[in-house]
């Protein structure tokens, strides 16, 4: 069984008279350790899909099973607990809290887990090492460069050792050089630490670091390419 299984998932939005269907009966399977990138035109529903997998939003129909739990059935409170334990979220604009230091920002999600202070400290330090920012622990976000801020954002997403990390255009607001460093980092996290990732991007070069590339258009996946995985859109195969 795959780590993430979306079955027959639909999502609609109504704006006045108009109804948009960004996700129209979609199936998606992601195996543990996979790195999936998601591309598509602006407004095609990439963020919507990401939010469904993250348990931030609910599908209109279909089921979303992550690590054996159907998260589309969970209550709001249960979803929050589920996110704390299972999800890492990397934002386009990192969303760091300006009044907290890099260390405190990274520590934030660990405060939701039942851990000893020692274990917490160890995890935060590990996460900082993983993104190469151990020497910036006491810096506030405004004292960091854009790339460093995104590294803190990534460390915050992996510090709880989540089942899956999602990223919504993680390099979207970075210059080319910094973007490449972040790509290398994400790839390394996937390959060395085995972190399962689902990443939205509009940049084909960024998408190419993934082991499987998906393209979303008109509510459906189109033109799926896979470099290593045996998964396909229909999802009949299994790991």
């Amino acid at each position, binding site marked *: 069984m795959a780590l993430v299984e979306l079955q027959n998932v639909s999502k609609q939005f109504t704006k006045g008279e108009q109804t948009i269907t960004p996700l129209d009966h979609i199936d998606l399977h992601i195996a543990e350790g996979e790195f999936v990138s998601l591309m598509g035109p602006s407004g095609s529903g990439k963020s919507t899909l990401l939010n469904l997998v993250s348990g931030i939003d609910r599908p209109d129909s279909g089921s979303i099973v992550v690590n054996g739990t159907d998260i589309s059935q969970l209550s709001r409170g249960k979803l929050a607990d589920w996110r704390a334990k299972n999800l890492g979220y990397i934002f386009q604009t990192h969303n760091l809290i300006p009044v907290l230091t890099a260390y405190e920002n990274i520590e*934030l999600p660990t405060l939701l887990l039942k851990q000893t202070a020692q274990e917490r400290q160890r995890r935060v330090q590990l996460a900082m090492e993983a993104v190469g920012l151990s020497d910036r622990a006491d810096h506030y976000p405004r004292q960091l460069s854009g790339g460093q801020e995104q590294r803190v954002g990534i460390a915050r997403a992996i510090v709880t050792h989540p089942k899956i990390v999602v990223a919504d255009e993680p390099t979207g607001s970075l210059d080319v050089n910094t973007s490449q460093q972040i790509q290398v980092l994400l790839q390394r996290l996937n390959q060395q630490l085995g972190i399962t990732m689902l990443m939205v991007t509009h940049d084909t070069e960024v998408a190419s670091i993934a082991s499987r590339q998906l393209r979303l258009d008109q509510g459906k996946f189109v033109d799926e390419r896979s470099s290593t995985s045996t998964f396909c859109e229909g999802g009949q195969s299994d790991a």
Partner: protein
Amino acid sequence: MLLPWEYGVRNLARRPIHSGLTLFALTTVTLLIFVVVGFIRGLERSLAVSGDPNVMLVYSLTSEENIENSSISAQIPDLLAASLSATVKHFGITHHSPELYLGSRVTTADQSPGLGLVRGVTPTAPLVRRTVRMTEGTWPQPGEVMVGRLAATKLGVPTEVLKIGNQIEMEGQAWQISGTFAAEGASFESEIWCDLSDLQTATKRQDLSLVAMLLKDRTASSEVDLFCMERKDLELRAVRESEYYQTLQQHYRPVRILGWLIVGLVATAGIFAGLNLMYGALAGRIRELAMLQVLGYKRVAILVSVVQEGLVLASAASLIAGTFAVCWINGLTVRFTMGAFALRIDSLAILSGCAVGLLLGILGALPPALKALHASVAINLKAV
């Protein structure tokens, strides 16, 4: 799980000028509340401690409730002493105090005339007026007066003007101040006391305003009542002193209601100061609050943290205002029609001041926080 405490506190430093101004506004509001409640409590206390339940006042039936208008014959005290067994008597001295009480223009050493409350008394007065203690100097001899702790406030002059040895002028005569006295906050403190017969001579009166009697016990008052009823020809009325001041309290009810009304209005204004801060503070933080929810923080936790922010500011305001009130406002004296009294920052004043202060923080933070958390996380993540 709650957000770390530092988050709430440091958020206040994000917009330091804004937070500073709000702190100032909240402090002012809380301080105003301390002043008004202190005023009400001071007034209440001055009237409450003035009434001794064991003291009976006998004065003329025709004077309505105003003792200043009362006139009774100078023989009444002896007559009462001879007819009643209810009055305390020790070593042959009846514990009653014949008094002449009037409002009079008083000119002080600095030439400013003011309306003073003057009471002509005999040396038995302190036996009945048991709260009265001399604080300095000596009991007034003919041509002398002693002044209450708040007499200067009542006259609207600085305290030094009424210090021992100074002269005052009243009833067309010069008087020397021989002593000062206090009365545990009772209304006597705003009065000027002198020798009864001295005052009678100066005012060319032979009558009295009232007799105050110390009763053996509370039930003895019925005997005095009965006497006044049987001797209709004397046209006397008897009132327990505590009841007399309770009636006065009734008169000041509108003032007290007005006071509490002001507390309410000022508090409302304060809530808007709090609201303004928190709306402003949270407007730019919509995405951040959504991000916290993505991490797994529940809305209650975020709500608590935001309220914490308001509370930190409100607590600081209460602390500053409270310190200020206790150090500088407590005991501040106020002139009033029936005398003068001291503002009283007692436990109730502290409690209501701080409660209102903290409420300002909570009520100011709740609506903006609820608003920020109302929309869905997915939408708020897109906020700029």
